[in-house]
């Protein structure tokens, strides 16, 4: 029974990496990035192929990140160089990557069940402790990296770009570059998570990314509802908590006998309740509305 709690925490931590990535694009850069569903699979696919060819599982952290970053770069280029709108760029990228993923995996599904994966070291499902500890370290490292990065000069550039592109340009901020790096890192994190999750579950599947954006937004909003503070280090912390809470709620619902079909409704409810409890004056979106009147 306790193991079920751990499963939620583990999945919560794994998906927290995705949520941190989504935070970078949706909140900081103000770029609703839909590439996520495919860059997630890209990280998984590349990881799977390399593991089957002998790569040690732990290297998936770098490999998955690089793969995801490339996926994000595609979106950034479509948007900044070809002038395609934010949402459409994400959708186009997602479609292109879908085909690439299929080719990489040479089919819709690749098994990792009999391959040496990093997860084995942690001997789940019987012993969750070490795996949870490992994941906490990975997630915290990523969180602190983001906190630090957004306080650097380039980080200020990135945040300015997300708030007001025109004003940013009047301060000679290279908004093409900031978007490229921001969307790249965000999808890099998503790919990294894909690489870890594919080892966790034992296989890669072409459809394993479906619903990732929505899940991340729900977890993101759940986390944001926990605080009224707007400081970045606090936000990155609460969204990790939000991801874990989200998985806990999903697991509880399953235990209570709710079917998988009801879980989509629950996700929507979580988003609604979070928006109600969270209060309005937090997001740039609302700020702009209030102060432009």
């Amino acid at each position, binding site marked *: 029974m306790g193991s079920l709690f751990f499963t939620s925490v583990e999945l919560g931590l794994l998906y927290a990496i995705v949520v941190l990535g989504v935070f970078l694009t949706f909140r900081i850069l103000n770029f609703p990035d839909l590439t996520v569903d495919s860059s997630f699979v890209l990280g998984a696919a590349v990881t799977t192929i390399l593991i089957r060819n002998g790569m040690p599982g732990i290297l998936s952290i770098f490999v998955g990140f690089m793969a995801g970053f490339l996926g994000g770069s595609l979106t950034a280029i479509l948007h900044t160089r070809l002038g395609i709108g934010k949402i459409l760029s994400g959708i186009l990228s997602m479609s292109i990557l879908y085909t690439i993923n299929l080719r990489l995996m040479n089919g819709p599904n690749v098994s990792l069940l009999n391959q040496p994966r990093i997860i084995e070291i942690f001997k789940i499902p019987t012993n969750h402790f070490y795996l949870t500890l490992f994941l906490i370290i990975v997630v915290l490292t990523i969180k602190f990296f983001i906190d630090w990065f957004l306080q*650097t000069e380039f980080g*200020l550039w990135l945040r300015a770009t997300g*708030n*007001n592109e025109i004003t940013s340009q009047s301060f*000679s901020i290279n908004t093409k570059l900031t978007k490229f790096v921001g969307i790249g890192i965000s999808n890099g994190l998503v790919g990294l998570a894909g690489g870890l999750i594919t080892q966790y579950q034992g296989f890669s599947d072409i459809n394993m990314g479906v619903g990732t954006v929505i899940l991340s937004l729900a977890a993101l909003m759940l986390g944001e509802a926990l605080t009224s503070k707007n400081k970045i280090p606090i936000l990155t912390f609460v969204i990790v908590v939000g991801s874990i809470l989200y998985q806990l709620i999903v697991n509880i619902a399953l235990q209570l006998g709710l079917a998988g079909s009801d879980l989509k409704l629950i996700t929507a409810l979580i988003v609604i309740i979070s928006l109600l409890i969270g209060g309005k004056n937090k997001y740039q979106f609302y*700020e702009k509305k209030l102060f432009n009147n």
Partner: protein
Amino acid sequence: MKKNFLIINDLTKIYDVGTSNEIVALKNFSLSIKKGEFITIVGSNAAGKTTLFSLINGSELPTSGSILLERKNLLALPEFRRAKLISCVRQNPNDSVITSMTLAENLALAKINGRNANLNKGVKKEWKKEFKIILESFHLGLEKRLDDKVSSLSGGQKQIIALIMATISKPKLLLLDEHTAALDPNVSKTVLRITDQIVKAGEITTLMITHNIRQAIEHGNLLILLEKGRIGFKVSGIKKQSLNIIEIENRLENRLAKPKNY
């Protein structure tokens, strides 16, 4: 001092050339400015004030004419390169600052303006001290709010921050585009007082567009009236101080009543 800091020669901007919608926004506009001058510009709505600014800062290119800044051809530089030399403060306080970041972070962004951002900490300790000193000089208590988000400031306070941001890296030219138009009269007074203070301290060559004739008379050393894309008249010195507001307003209104003709 020779008037060759900023030389605008025969600047013309025509929209939709040759069509029935053709609009002549600026016609053979010429002006020579010496370093450190503070010029106020007034004119009715279609007079060409905003066009003049957008040609100077690079958001638009002229149909003909030239602009030389310190004898270099300004028109050869694209907008983002001009941003290093020319700073603007606009009318909408929310367009001049980054509302989601703190005062200190905004000022740091202004200090970074003109070079590539690196991975060092954005708001450095020494910079923060510098910002504190600058803010203290205005006696408005802003130095206590360095770590507050700019969104929590009033319109007037935002414009003051915008002014500091625009001048912190000593631009060659400062363009003020009706920067107090959206503020209450009292707040406008304060912002203009600070404007004078900053411009004087940095000896910054400044062009200010305003709809408020009194402001145009009371601030700056040269007043230009733009009418239909040309200079109506220029006044400086004592003559400027003794200008009659009513006269100027009438002149602007009269011109509005008369039909267009070139």
